[in-house]
């Protein structure tokens, strides 16, 4: 069984999506168990794969028994195994946490919601596991298309935001496809491992540079790297809570993962470092992304929008770290990728819990919330500390690696940007907690039944099924932080390239 984990990782959720959509016609009650089952199997496979990769080294899997250059090949080393495990766990925990919110807000659309949810996870897991450049495009579009639909289910202007995301997302994915086309012209192969050694003699070629630029620019659009970030804040802040806490932690991070995969194992660092001569410029772009994301976040008056801009800033961290051009910077980028999945999940899930109870996430809605939802706010505070970078939460350690990498590269701009955005995060969250701690609970603010509570506030927490996953995520932040040493040693170090860096 365990030798087929790479296939199960993708086929289990894919099949369960079909079953869920059938069940939504016949037995709507079965939708949630089927979706949980599909994701559960995928999580089991991802966890098993991570264990196997740690023990045995990289695993290759030939789909349908076809050999690599001709058939589709799934390849898992420690980097994608850990990202796959993070994706699967976050998706499973989030579904367990979110089903109450889905039942409350989308009672008549539960079946389609679960179908889209599971399909989105299928795409994300497939993107991580595949070793084939075109296969990656198809899975990217699967997760994007379901993402557009999930966001479009939201209230208010969500459909318009989703349509704008669709336009930009399609441009990004098309650029990626175009880049893959150029790679195919020069090498005649689509397999990533194959491409890596076929490209080596061609590094001087203009076509290879074009291919790399198109792929990277396409991925930047998809991950909302600063100048092309415009779709993200609207889309993620207006998405339904359960969809936001799925897509915000995973979508952008998986795109960053794909970029790192392209840089490390398709084009290799020799090409990125010596042929392109763009490293410095990209790191400066990341500096602008970090600063701009932080400043935009400062201007928001709504929790979810503020968090969305923080995601824009965090993407800058990872892109900058990956392009710093040394081992420590790249380690920091990968570490931050893993940590950011959990951080973003924690804060977006907390925002989802707040929305579930209060029906709003504007700052005025949060007044006095510490008294009313102490556990949710405690988890939000833990997420905030991780984003600021306070030890022993995981955010501190990845920032530490990123700053060390920047110092080694002599890039003072990146160091300043990291410190500046951490300071801004302090301001952001302390302003938020001031409102939630000290301002009295707003009375009759017109956001539903909980508005007219007496000043002696009764604790009205989110349901336990939402609270427990949230607590798990908050504890995960500390656990990940304390596990930084082993993570770097056993997971990140084996995938770092030898040679130039």
């Amino acid at each position, binding site marked *: 069984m365990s030798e087929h984990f790479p296939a199960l990782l993708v086929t289990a959720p894919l099949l369960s999506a079909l079953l869920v959509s059938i069940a939504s016609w016949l037995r709507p009650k079965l939708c949630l168990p089927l979706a949980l089952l599909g994701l559960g199997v995928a999580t089991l496979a991802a966890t098993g794969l991570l264990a196997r990769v740690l023990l045995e080294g990289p695993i290759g899997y030939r789909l349908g028994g076809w050999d690599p250059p001709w058939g589709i090949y799934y390849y898992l080393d420690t980097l994608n195994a850990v990202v796959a495990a993070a994706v699967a766990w976050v998706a499973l925990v989030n579904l367990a946490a979110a089903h109450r919110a889905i039942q409350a807000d989308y009672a008549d659309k539960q079946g389609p919601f679960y179908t889209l949810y599971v399909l989105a996870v299928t795409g994300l897991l497939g993107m991580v596991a595949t070793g084939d450049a075109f296969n990656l495009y198809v899975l990217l579009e699967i997760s994007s298309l379901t993402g557009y639909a999930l966001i*479009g289910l939201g209230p208010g202007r969500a*459909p318009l935001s989703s349509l704008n995301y669709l336009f930009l997302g399609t441009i990004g994915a098309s650029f990626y496809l175009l880049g893959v086309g150029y790679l195919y012209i020069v090498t005649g192969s689509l397999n990533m491992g194959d491409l890596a050694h076929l490209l080596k003699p061609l590094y001087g070629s203009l076509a290879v540079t074009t291919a790399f630029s198109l792929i990277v620019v396409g991925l930047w659009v998809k991950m909302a790297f600063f100048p092309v970030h415009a779709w993200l804040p609207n889309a993620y802040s207006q998405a339904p809570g359960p969809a936001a806490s799925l897509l915000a932690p995973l979508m952008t991070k998986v795109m960053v993962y794909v970029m790192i995969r392209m840089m490390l194992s398709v084009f290799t660092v020799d090409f990125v470092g010596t042929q392109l001569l763009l490293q410095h410029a990209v790191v400066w772009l990341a500096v602008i992304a970090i600063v701009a994301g932080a400043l935009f976040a400062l201007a928001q008056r709504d929790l979810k929008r503020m968090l969305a801009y923080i995601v824009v800033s965090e993407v800058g961290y990872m892109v900058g770290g990956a392009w710093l051009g040394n081992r420590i910077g790249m380690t920091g980028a990968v570490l931050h990728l893993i940590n950011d999945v959990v951080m973003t999940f924690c804060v977006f899930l907390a925002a989802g819990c707040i929305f579930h109870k209060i029906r709003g996430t504007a700052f005025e809605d949060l007044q006095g919330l510490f008294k009313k939802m102490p556990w949710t706010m405690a988890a939000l505070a833990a997420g905030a500390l991780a984003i600021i970078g306070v030890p022993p939460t995981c955010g501190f350690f990845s920032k530490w690696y990123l700053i060390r990498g920047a110092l080694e590269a002599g890039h003072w701009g990146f160091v300043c940007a990291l410190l500046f955005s951490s300071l801004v995060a302090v301001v952001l969250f302390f302003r938020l907690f001031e409102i939630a701690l000290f301002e009295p609970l707003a009375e009759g603010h017109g956001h539903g039944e909980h508005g007219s509570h007496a000043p002696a506030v009764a604790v009205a927490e989110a349901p336990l099924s939402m609270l427990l996953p949230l607590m798990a995520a908050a504890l995960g932040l500390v656990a990940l932080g304390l596990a930084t040493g082993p993570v770097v040693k056993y997971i990140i170090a084996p995938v770092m390239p030898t040679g130039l860096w």
Partner: protein
Amino acid sequence: MDMAQYIPLLLTKYNYWVYITLMMIGLWAMIAKNNLVKKIIGMSIFQTAIILFYVSMGAKYGATIPIIEHGHGAEAAVQAADYINPLPHVLMLTAIVVSVATLGVALALSIRIHRRHRTLEEDGILDQLREP
């Protein structure tokens, strides 16, 4: 390089210029048009341009479709130069499905937008969103 060297580049690689032109038309429509459906049409043109790019890169002069006539058994020698490369074409079957799905999602979203705002003009929708 003087001008004379560019002319063969323009003439022999015309398929690439055609796809770039189409792509830019699509991109322009997506950016500049005010009507959401026109933007969606632009998106479709943009995607189709890439499909044309892939299809044109599989083509060869004087080659035929990649089916071997009476080719069962080992004695039929296959000259790759005689056949169009089928792989990019097959990949594009998938890409066409993807672009149809994208178009479907985009149209479904625009139906939702129209139900909510009674218009598909972007500035009209933004005006409505700004008012309350």
